Structures are given as C-alpha cells and as structure tokens.
C-alpha cells in the first residue's frame, strides 16, 4: 500500500532558514543545512527545500547550498525557488535534487513545464501553486513569493499544469501559511476534484488532527514547517497519530 507522505518544508533566504506567516513576517530560525541533516537523521519521508528569496530578487538557484544539503540526504529532495530554465533544472538534478518545484516562471512561461517534463520525466517536476482566497468561493493564484496577483482562478491553473505534464502539485494556502490553525480544506477539496495527479497540501498545519483532515479532504501528501519549529510534535509523532486514525504511513 502506498503510504501517505509527511513532508517537512524548509524555507530559506540569504543562507538563513526562515519561517513566514501569510508569506510575510519572516523569522530567521538558523541554518538550513543543519536543519536538513536533522530531518535526514529523523528518517523523514521527503523534504521540500525552497529558496523564497530567489523569485523576488531574481537570483540564480543557490547551487552550493543544494549541493551541501544533498551530502547526506538519503530521502527524496524537492528543490524550488526562482527556477526558470531547463539548464538550471538539469544542474540542480545533477548535484543532488530529486525533484524540482516550479512556480513563478512556470506561470510566466507555461511551456517550461512540458519542456522539463519531457526532458526529466513528469515524476521530477512539481508545480508549486500559491493561493489566496479572494472571496467566499474564489481562489486565485499569486506568484513572485505571493506578492503578485494574477487574477487566475486556481482550478483552471491546476488543470493546465497537469495537462502540461506536471507530476505533482504543491498547493500552498497563503492565508493559512504560518497560522497553524489547519489547512484550507475547501481549497484542497476543489483541487482534488479538478485533477488526477498527486497533491501535496501546504499551509496551516499546527496539530496532528490537521494532517488527517487534509488527507480526508483529498490531499495525497502533507507538508508543514511551523509545527516542527514551534511545537514539540515531530514527524514521527504526527505519523503515529495519523496511523491511529487509519491513514497508512511509513513508520
């Protein structure tokens, strides 16, 4: 049976591990490389590593950092942040990334998704989608680290990225980010209904129950950051809880 993945998200900016609340109020939390080593030692399912400064400052992926974290990372590693060319993707995969998360530049130039999927396989291409609720029933996508509105409705874009060959969607609610009050379940439900590739839910986890609700509403995997930084819960303790609630996990 396929296990439900619990994925810590490591955000970094200018060589520092950071954590945001609604994509703002960044707090510096230390060294990202050290953090990855700890997660590896804790035998987590997978890791998402995002350079949140890159799309804003328009800088190249930080190859040295990726190379260093992959030194002892015997779990799947997804790397994202400001990636805009097939050449950058090739280089990141070569130095230790297993999957690439595209976001802003996939939106600006959607042919990047198909080009990358053809070259490296859909299984290596994650499209990261940052979403804000604009009114009771409408969610729109935002790019450039959540700073730039697009006016595009989320299910429309999710269907398009799936059609263009994305292997997974990392679905982040900007409103719920860092709030630790639970995932945006309505959003997860809507996307799960719209597409048939795996969805990684992100934004809002603060308690073990939140992960279970996300899965029950259609997420295939759950990502989180704050809960690991600010509470005593560990990936293992959360997975123990998930298993008790009948969700298959890898222990």
């Amino acid at each position, binding site marked *: *049976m*396929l*296990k*439900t*993945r619990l994925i810590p998200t490591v955000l970094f900016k200018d060589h520092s591990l950071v954590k945001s609340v609604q994509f703002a109020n960044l707090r510096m939390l230390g060294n990202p490389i050290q953090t990855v080593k700890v997660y590896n030692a804790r*035998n987590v*399912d*997978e890791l998402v590593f995002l350079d949140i400064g890159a799309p804003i400052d328009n800088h190249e992926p930080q190859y040295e950092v990726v*190379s260093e974290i*992959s*030194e*002892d*990372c*015997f*779990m*799947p*590693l997804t790397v994202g942040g400001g990636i805009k060319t097939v050449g950058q993707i*090739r280089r990141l*995969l*070569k*130095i*230790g*990334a*297993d*999957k690439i998360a595209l976001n802003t530049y996939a939106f600006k130039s959607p042919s990047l998704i198909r080009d990358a999927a*053809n*070259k*490296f*396989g*859909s*299984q*290596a291409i994650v499209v990261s989608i940052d979403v804000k609720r604009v009114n009771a029933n409408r969610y729109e996508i935002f790019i450039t680290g959540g700073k730039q509105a697009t006016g595009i409705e989320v299910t429309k874009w999710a269907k398009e990225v799936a059609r263009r060959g994305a*292997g*997974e969607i990392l679905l982040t609610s900007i409103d719920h980010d860092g709030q630790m009050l639970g995932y945006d379940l309505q959003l997860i439900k809507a996307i799960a209904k719209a597409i*048939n*590739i*795996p969805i990684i839910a992100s934004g809002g986890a603060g308690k073990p129950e939140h992960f279970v609700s996300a899965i029950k509403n259609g997420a*295939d*995997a759950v990502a989180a950051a704050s809960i690991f930084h600010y509470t005593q819960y560990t990936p293992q303790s959360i997975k123990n809880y998930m298993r008790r609630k009948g969700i298959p996990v*890898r222990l």
Partner: protein
Amino acid sequence: MIMIVDYGMSNLRSVAKAVEAAGGRSVKVSNKLLDLQAATHIILPGQGAFPDGMANLKKGKLIEGIRHQINTLKKPFLGICLGMQLLATSGHESGVNNGLNIISGKTIHLTVKEKKYKLPHIGWNDIAYNIKCPLFKGLSKSPDFYFDHSYYLEPLDSSITVATCTYGQTFPVTFWRQNLFATLFHPEKSQTNGIKLLKNFIQTQFQYHA
C-alpha cells in the same frame, strides 16, 4: 571501483553519496568505456523518459559496453528506475523505442483503473520480495521503498522477478538474474532500507554464478 554510469539522465550525486554511505570505498561517476571495463560493479541510475535515456546512452556510445559487461563478463550490475526500464527490449513511452534488450520484455505504462490511484506513482510503498535474492538480506518483511514513476518493465520470463509492489495493479519491482539486478524504486532515496540494499549489492561480487 563502483561505477555510476553518467548518461545525463539522473540524480547522479544522490546515487554516489548513497553508495558511499553503504560502504562503497571507490565510487566513480563516469561516462567512459575504460571505467566500465575497470569497474567491479556497475550502477545504471536513471530518472526521466525512455526515449531520451536510450538516445543519451547511444550518444555516449555506452550501449554495447554495458551489454558486454552484463552478458559476457557477468559483472554485478544494478539498474535503478529508468536504469531498470531501459533494460527492456522496447519502451512504450512517447512512441515505441528500442531498449538495451538485456531483459526480454516491454516497458509500459502502469494501468490503474480506479481514480484513487493517481499517477505518477510517487511515494513510499511496501514490496513483497523473495528472500533468496541477496539484495534483500537483512531487510524486514514488506519493507517500504521510495517510488517515483509511471512506467514499469513487464518481462517475458517472470522467473526473474524477485519483488513486486501493488498499486492499482501488481507489478514487478526487482529483477535478479545471475549478476544482473534491477529495482524500479530508488534505493538511494529509501533511507536505511535503501542503504542496506545497496550494501548488499556491493557485496555480491563473488556470487556471479548464484
């Protein structure tokens, strides 16, 4: 020397690091025929699409060399994911393409009928394995490994299948024939289970005629 074949299609460094963690003392990522000849063990890793994989092996003039090392010299060989799929006679991904033809069979798309089985098949899935295969020495029953694929190799001779996985359908995930091993999952990304498997592979050198 353990050679990791560089044909431009893979998470080469992840594989090299994991082999080192498994105790591989001399690990070389290379695309040179001389290294294929010098190697004691050969690993063909892989991520990506079948046609590109074959095109790159061809461009690197590696096809005959790999076949010779496996079929004639019987050197321990491990294909991983795409590196397993490419061993087939043909690949049915974006058209039909010739494979390395080391294992008779076709690389085809997974068939999942129910909507709850999404593709690609991504994540940790347990496998059922044959304990006779040395790769699985020391592993627990039904161990989890990390998968990330939509295709698999359906061999004509099912007796080479030593592990299967079930996701929508049951499909072969490990082959073993003398010196030849192949896994559809990624041992280099499967934490301690994967490192154990790689360690077992490195230790197969005296089992050519098993």
